[in-house]
């Protein structure tokens, strides 16, 4: 049974890293794009694109999202899809928290209630066996 516990620990640690990377990546993208005015005509779209390519936060965001994707592929190489997918939805909670703390956005009570439900759901799925197919 200790091997199941080991697998679960390894899986959850990677899920936390994956969610952290994608959440931080999203926040970087948001911060980067906030500094770039986007209007819907060809000239300013081209200008906005040039500014995007030259933006440090945008590249940091892309790097974070790439790291997150690699961790996702690694997770799926040993854990169930029906485990990884619901468990990683606790990213909603992380993004809500970061949006309030870093970006100073306000989050409604109803939205916190939804985040609460997600966390309870993640707790339930997290306790199940991470891998139910084949031998690892």
């Amino acid at each position, binding site marked *: 049974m200790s091997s199941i516990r080991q697998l679960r620990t390894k899986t959850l640690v990677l899920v936390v890293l994956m969610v952290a990377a994608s959440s931080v990546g999203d926040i970087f993208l948001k911060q980067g794009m906030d500094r770039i005015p986007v209007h819907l005509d060809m000239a300013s779209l081209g200008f906005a694109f040039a500014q995007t390519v030259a933006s440090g936060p945008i590249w940091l965001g892309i790097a974070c999202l790439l790291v997150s994707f690699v961790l996702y592929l690694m997770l799926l190489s040993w854990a169930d*899809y029906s485990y990884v997918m619901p468990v990683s939805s606790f990213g909603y909670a992380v993004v809500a928290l970061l949006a309030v703390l870093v970006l100073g956005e306000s989050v409604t009570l109803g939205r916190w209630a939804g985040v609460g439900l997600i966390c309870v759901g993640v707790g339930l799925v997290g306790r199940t066996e991470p891998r139910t197919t084949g031998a690892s």
Partner: protein
Amino acid sequence: MRLLIFLLVAVLASTAGEIAITHGMKKVGGPEHLAPRAIVAFLGRALGSGWFWLGTLLSALYFYAMLALLSWAPVSLIVPATALSYAVGVLGAKLLLSERVSPGRWAGVALVCAGVALAWVA
């Protein structure tokens, strides 16, 4: 009607894409240990997998279906509706990948679905 069809396309394409990627990753096998060299070797195997590229193609289809949906309807309608893909994903994993989904896991997924829908509607 158009909305419903594209919603169906989006949910099915994203689920099928993720399931293809999962199948591919199981086939190529994970990194032997969590060290940089083993992880790079794993990435090489992953990028050489046809299932990975099929999954990526389906994800692109999902992306375009989402763009179309977002151009017709508000995000606050589209995102809660795509919370459905959590349930469809688990069903697909059970039927196509033979993962065993315990009642506890189903209950957790149902709560996540409800939570995502609520967080966006509220």
